[in-house]
């Protein structure tokens, strides 16, 4: 009896979480004009419509560009910051570390507004570049936290050995530290990709003519619900899941001792 109740409860919870996505995906395969029951698919006509829509495909391209470049930058800066905190004695190290991870707690709206004001006063126009910087701001603390947690004293000794054998500081970083930490670097990169990929608020505030996919979807929704929005939503979801799985592979894989 207990078992039936708990199974039922679990089904409810998972249904609550995943039913909207499941409905979205189901009706993206709708054959008729309206994303409402009865379902009369499956059909790929709306996916075809998405891929021939110039605004959506350019949004897709822009999103991939912004996500990969901003994630790369966030990972690089996070790595350097983690290395600095882990390997050097800095004044007020604890407070500075807390400060660098603080953007994780601040709402994207606040960060986006702040950047908008700064960019406006600096004369930086709204663009994909500006949105990319915004994504670096939100993802760098995350990359820092992931990479910093993987830097231990054992690696410090390995770096010392490299230095002892004649490696310059630059070579130690490039040939020893970064390769040793590659699971953390990849995890940081792919988690950043996930967040940048479907980030809306900052991109909305900081882009104008060329924009990212979430903004294009939002524009599409102005015209009302249609199965095309479901198809593009399913694509976004699929790609997010891909990034999330890659992240899990690197973050959770067992390290050889």
């Amino acid at each position, binding site marked *: 009896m207990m078992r039936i109740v708990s199974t039922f409860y679990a089904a409810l919870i998972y249904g609550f979480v995943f039913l909207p996505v499941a409905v979205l995906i189901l009706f993206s395969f709708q054959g008729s004009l309206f994303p409402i029951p009865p379902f009369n698919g499956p059909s790929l006509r709306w996916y075809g419509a998405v891929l021939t829509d110039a605004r959506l495909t350019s949004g897709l391209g822009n999103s991939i560009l912004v996500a990969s470049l901003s994630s790369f930058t966030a990972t690089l800066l996070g790595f350097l910051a983690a290395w600095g905190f882990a390997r050097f004695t800095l004044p007020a190290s604890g407070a500075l570390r807390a400060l660098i991870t603080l953007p994780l707690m601040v709402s994207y709206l606040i960060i986006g507004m702040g950047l908008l004001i700064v960019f406006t006063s600096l004369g930086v126009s709204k663009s994909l570049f500006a949105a990319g910087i915004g994504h670096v701001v939100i993802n760098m603390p995350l990359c820092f936290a992931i990479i910093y947690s993987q830097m231990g004293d054992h690696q410090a000794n390995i770096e010392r050995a*490299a230095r*002892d054998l*004649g490696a310059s500081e630059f070579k130690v970083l490039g040939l020893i530290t970064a390769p040793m930490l*590659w699971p953390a670097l990849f995890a940081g990169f792919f988690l950043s990709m996930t967040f940048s990929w479907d980030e809306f608020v900052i991109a909305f505030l900081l882009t104008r003519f060329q924009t990212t996919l979430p903004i294009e979807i939002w524009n599409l929704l102005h015209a009302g619900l249609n199965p095309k929005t479901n198809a593009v939503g399913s694509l976004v979801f699929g790609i997010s899941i891909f990034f999330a799985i890659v992240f899990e592979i690197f973050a959770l894989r067992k390290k050889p001792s």
Partner: protein
Amino acid sequence: MTALLSIEHITHNFGKARVLGDVSLQIASGSYTILLGPSGSGKTTLLSILGGFLQPDQGRVLINGIDCTSMPPAKRPTATVFQDYALFPHLSIGNNVGFGLRMKGVAKSERDGKARAMLSLVGLGEAFDKKPHQLSGGQRQRVALARALVVEPAVLLLDEPLGALDLKLRRQMQDELKAIQQRVGTAFVHVTHDQEEAMALGDHVVVMNQGRIEDEGAPERVYAKPATRFSATFMGESTIIAAEAIGKSQVQTAFGKFKIPGAPDAGKVQLAIRPEHITLGGKVSATVSDVVYQGSFKRIVAVPAVMPELQLLCKIPAETEISIGEKISLNIAPDKLVLLKEE
């Protein structure tokens, strides 16, 4: 003779704690030097200063007559074997060993050749393409040794290199280390707290305690004629006997008068004697308070009747029947008593 490595008046503090106090030491080329001491004696700090990982507060380090005190590790003619081996986990064994040559700009084919030669010298010729995690502790140790030796350092520094190995492997690696050192002829400076390791490996033993050098010299000399009380009890065991100098190189103890060359004319002195120089059958009557069977001998603690606060350590033949509480008589070899330096 100019020493290969010369340490001049090195003093170093960690915060307010003095870890090295005015340490001076000369190391000859081709020698195997052991820095022996308990934890906190400053031996590892001294090694870090030699390797360039630490700048001493005062004093100088000269290698081949060149002042290296503030030279970074990369520029020094030293190479270090770390206690945890510190192999590069993402590189193959061959690339680990070839790393130092790569940093010197040696071409790939040449450094691979040298790495292979060095790996076969340490008995790991077949491990070239493996990764560090595929090797056992003893094998990783050898890779660390090969990696440091392949750059042909003037001095090889070893930080408790056998500390992580089990006893049997440790004794085996000891013999190999000594053989490798004799083959390559490089000066080794080896830090350990294991006095057996020190005696087995070193031709120059430096006994350290509380940031100072207590004694140094050939292991035979340090063992037979320890300079200080610390040296007498840390490198092997000793019984310390209090005595009174009475002039004419003679001292008075509870066990009678002894002639000790170099004894002062008056004042309190301390004598040390090794357990193997106190034997059964003599004039000193004592009571056995402890017996430990050690396989090849029995180590006993005996309390002499004339001086009940003293514990005499003796080694007696393993087959001797003896039990706690038994009354025995002992002989203290007079010529084996060592006069210790004032502390």
